[in-house]
């Protein structure tokens, strides 16, 4: 069966299945289990209304539980076990973690991830704020926003190709086709540089890709926040003789601080999960390893599920504070 046909069939089965599940389960509840007629009509309606939310929620909760919640605990378990031949496994305590902590590649990945965490959210938010502030003041601002926002639609892999062309290196006697080396040679560089192979700095060339992608996101959210600032506060500042920079840093920035934090944490999570860019551009060579790629290499190249799961747990651990913070805020908002 051709996969495209299979896909069509899956859509029909999936959508049809969903609709008939919801339709028939509701029918069953209202007509058979607790009919809204007869001597107990009132009580039956109440009972049906107690059960109904769970009918609506069941497929989603089952999928969430199986595909996101259960794996967290299973990964935790796997990180404490070792795979043995013949589908068996053995509890080994913290051995996987010990082994991981003894690997220099892990510390390199962790160090790089920390660097990413410092640089990418900061630069994306800063550029996003700048773009939002500038584009709100000119008539062609919407076009500018569209263009800066555009990389959001581009895959990390596509972006990796785009930026590899920017970083391309040719021998000195040829024309440089990578714009970075072309500029470098133009401004007096003697020897074209293979940017992605210089340890430490090459991580920054990879980060540039993610900053380029995420700035648009930051800009869109921050631009909406900037527009939400009450006019009076700005007018009052102008009357008091504040200059544009003071208005921005003393009046506007404090009022959108909450949004800045949201943008920052959202990009932080993207950074923690970043995999495709490193995988496609350097695959962790030349000391550019990051946690997600380290984990992938452990799990699927070295086939070491124990250490792979342990490194996944490290990513989870790093996400945890943001998770708690988000849940705390969401609950506060609902009250």
């Amino acid at each position, binding site marked *: 069966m051709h996969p495209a046909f299979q896909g069509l069939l899956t859509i029909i089965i999936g959508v049809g299945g969903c609709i008939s599940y919801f339709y028939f389960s509701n029918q069953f509840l209202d007509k058979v289990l607790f009919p809204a007629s007869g001597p107990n009509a009132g009580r039956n309606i109440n009972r049906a209304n107690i059960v109904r939310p769970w009918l609506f929620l069941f497929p989603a909760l089952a999928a969430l539980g199986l595909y996101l919640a259960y794996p967290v605990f299973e990964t935790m378990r796997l990180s404490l076990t070792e795979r043995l031949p013949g589908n068996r496994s053995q509890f080994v305590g913290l051995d996987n973690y010990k082994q991981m902590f003894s690997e220099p590649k892990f510390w390199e990945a962790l160090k790089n991830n920390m660097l990413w965490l410092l640089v990418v959210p900061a630069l994306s938010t800063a550029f996003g704020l700048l773009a939002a502030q*500038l584009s709100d003041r000119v008539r062609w601002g919407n076009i500018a926003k*569209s263009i800066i926002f*555009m990389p959001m639609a581009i895959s990390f892999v596509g972006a990796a190709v785009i930026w590899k062309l920017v970083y391309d290196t040719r021998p000195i006697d040829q024309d440089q086709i990578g714009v970075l080396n072309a500029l470098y040679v133009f401004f007096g560089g003697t020897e074209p540089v293979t940017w992605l192979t210089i340890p430490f700095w090459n991580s920054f060339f990879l980060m540039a890709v993610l900053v380029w992608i995420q700035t648009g996101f930051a800009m869109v959210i921050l631009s909406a926040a900037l527009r939400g600032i009450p006019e009076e506060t700005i007018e009052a500042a102008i009357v008091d003789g504040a200059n544009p920079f003071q208005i921005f840093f003393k009046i506007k920035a404090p009022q959108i601080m909450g949004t800045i934090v949201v943008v920052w944490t959202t990009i932080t999570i993207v950074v923690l999960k970043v995999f*495709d860019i490193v995988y496609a551009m350097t695959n962790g060579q030349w000391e550019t390893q990051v946690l997600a790629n380290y984990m992938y290499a452990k799990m699927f190249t070295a086939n070491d599920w124990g250490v792979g799961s342990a490194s996944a747990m490290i990513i989870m651990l790093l*996400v945890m504070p943001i998770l708690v913070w988000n849940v705390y805020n969401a609950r506060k908002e609902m009250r």
Partner: protein
Amino acid sequence: MDNIAGTKSSLVWAVHLSLVALVLLWLFPTAGLFVSSFRTADQISGSGWWKSMVSSEQNLILRTAPSADQVEIDGKFVIEGNLFEDRKASDISVWGTTSKAISDFKAGDTAPLRGGGSVTVLPNGDYKVEHSEALTGKRGSRIFVTATQDPEFTTGNYKNVLFNPGNREGLGKAFINTLTVTIPATIIPILIAAFAAYALAWMDFPGRALLIAFVVALLVVPLQLALIPLLKFHNQIGIGKGYIGVWLAHTGFGLPLAIYLLRNYMVGLPRDIIENARVDGATEFQIFTKIILPLSFPALASFAIFQFLWTWNDLLVSLVFLIDSTGETTVMTKQIVELLGTRGGNWEILATSAFVSIAVPLIVFFSMQKYLVRGLLAGSVK
């Protein structure tokens, strides 16, 4: 307002110029890929893409015709022809016969050939090889020319990448595969999420707040944690690696955002409509399908775009759950990563393949930007 305050016009100019600089900086890398995908391999490696719009000087290595083409005229063996053959003709300024001295002769000069005899090259590429003895050798002599070429673009790369059945690295199949992954993985979670979101928004039951918190928590759980457990699970229930697995995985991973977005939107719908419908005796199922779903269209569209972009651009989930050792089910992102490894220098292939894969998301992006922005604003946890 700036005018009221009497802001200096120099500041206005600074704003315009900085924004222009920022926009150009953001556009430049993508533009490079786009322009490169319409250039031939020679052009790409000959000069930077930013020079493609103007006539440029290029160093080319061309060949004279093989000795089979020679004719005998007045006791001399002669080969005549044009160096550019089926390429676009361009203006030769200087040329040479060895790679050490590629600019020793001007157009119109006559130079000795290494194997004896001489060759004359004219600016338009016409040449004449003369030798007193019969020429031998299957291939002609190499001529190194420096020529000015007019800007030239081709769609040949796209034909080769997309429609050439002989090209084993072609993207045609991967394109179909990506589409096959994307469409069910976009549609199925929407429906499941919509029902759940309605329950979380408009039904009262114990534990609702807890469930919402649960969804918010799952929003940020890295899917890296799910890879091995789910692969094990898929193997146990007999799905293994394949489309079913990747559809299920994308559905599961997309649900938290879907539920969160839709619930936030549905909560904002006017209470009167729903309560009136309840009073009029509509069942919850009817309220959902007849009122809530149509009214929630903007939120549904937002999520659909997110999920589409995310599944189309995904690499990790497909690597783990879909692509088996046969490579029959490879998706575009995976194929491009492979090309990066094997064809790292062939920018005409890389650029074109990459652009094919980002073209569809870009079309979706520009045609539905409104919904995307709306979704982003609602979806970032406040």
